[in-house]
């Protein structure tokens, strides 16, 4: 609605994510119970909190997959209540599951997602290398991979997709030590290229060292960490 930047805010740029008192239901259950959060461009925000607190739901709300029941939300300038379809093209979500096609090889998976945004062969190769799933692995069908290799492939797909807002749900799960380093590099590179990142994770040390800000999610609400 008001496209002009609001002079009162500390950050001159328009926030990438802005939820105000957001309530989201899973069945009858208020998985988000009035969450307020604001994420500015270029931030890497870590969501932490106990199991079942609502981190996954928060990310899915931002991705436009779960509708808001009450409250307000804007993502990349679009209203989550009315323009959910417009939000999506520029959001990349890595959920608890990987979204891979088991019968396609690693390379074909990454190529499919890359092709949707017109990525070239070189960019696909670069994405594969980023998460170290090139070489021999690139030609293995995704269903035959180990758990960590699948997670790596999913991250490579995300790299190829070149989203503006990255929503990552426990990206560390299943990654070995080297993979975690590669993930850090990947995320730094993405931010350098203009992306904004929200990560939910239980690997507090790892993710905390990367994040520019940490917020607590507790019982469906968001609390800033001092």
């Amino acid at each position: 609605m008001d496209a002009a930047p609001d002079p009162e805010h500390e950050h001159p740029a328009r926030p990438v994510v802005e939820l105000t008192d957001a309530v989201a239901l899973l069945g009858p259950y208020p998985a988000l119970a009035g969450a307020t959060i604001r994420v500015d461009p270029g931030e890497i925000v870590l969501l932490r909190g106990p199991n079942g607190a609502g981190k996954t739901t928060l990310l899915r709300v931002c991705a436009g997959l779960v509708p808001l029941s009450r409250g307000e939300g804007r993502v990349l300038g679009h209203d989550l209540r009315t323009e959910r379809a417009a939000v999506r093209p520029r959001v990349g979500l890595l959920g608890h599951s990987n979204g891979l096609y088991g019968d396609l090889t690693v390379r074909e998976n990454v190529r499919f997602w890359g092709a949707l945004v017109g990525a070239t062969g070189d960019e696909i190769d670069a994405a594969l290398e980023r998460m170290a799933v090139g070489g021999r692995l690139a030609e293995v069908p995704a269903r035959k991979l180990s758990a960590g290799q699948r997670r790596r492939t999913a991250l490579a797909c995300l790299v190829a997709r070149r989203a503006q807002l990255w929503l990552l749900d426990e990206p560390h799960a299943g990654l070995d030590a080297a993979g975690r380093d590669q993930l850090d590099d990947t995320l730094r590179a993405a931010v350098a290229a203009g992306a904004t990142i929200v990560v939910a994770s239980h690997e507090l040390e790892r993710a905390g060292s990367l994040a520019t800000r940490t917020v607590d999610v507790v019982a469906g609400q968001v609390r800033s960490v001092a």
Partner: protein
Amino acid sequence: MSRWRVALLVARKDLAIEWRSRVVLDQVLPFAGVTMVLFAFALDSDAVLERVAPGLVWLAVLFSLLVLVQRAFAVEAADGALDALRVAGVDPMSIYWGKGLSLALQLLVLEALLLAAAVVLYGAEVPAEGVVLLVTTSITATPGLAAVGTLYGGLAAGFTGRETLLPLLVLPAVAPVLIGATRAVESALGTAGAATSDGWPWVGLLTVFAVAFGVGGSLAFGPLIDE
């Protein structure tokens, strides 16, 4: 990237998966074949059989359609790829066209083989002038089937128990195709003295159905899978 290019990407991916896993060729086709043999068993009378052969072929096609649609969306749902597609902002209409296209191609192959099988199994005979009608019927019936299958396949994909919601939605909706295609094939084969010319109005009906459901589905698919 234009809608059509994305749709083609989706279709190519689906066909690649099929090519890799060979499910249609290795399994659906024999399934349809077995179904037709079972029909023959259950009916158990040559005279009756020849009379109803066209209907049976299309019934076998319908059941195969259900299996194919289930498979097409099981592939997406298995690891949450449908969510990923939706979030990637892929236009639902492109997904619909892409998946519909790959489904239609697979169905066409299947129909060709089943019709051939019917000719052998049920002793149906195709007069020369019927061949054109036969081919046209397949080509007009298939998009309608694919359109309905893809539409409801997408709706059912997100839910548990989808194995069973799907037939409930699809079967009544494609009944007109079943009727139209059966009548058209009866005419093509000259079953029970039907004339070839009787078949063409049914082809018209099939075309109308395909266009109506193609357009309706393109518009409805987004809202149906969006939520």
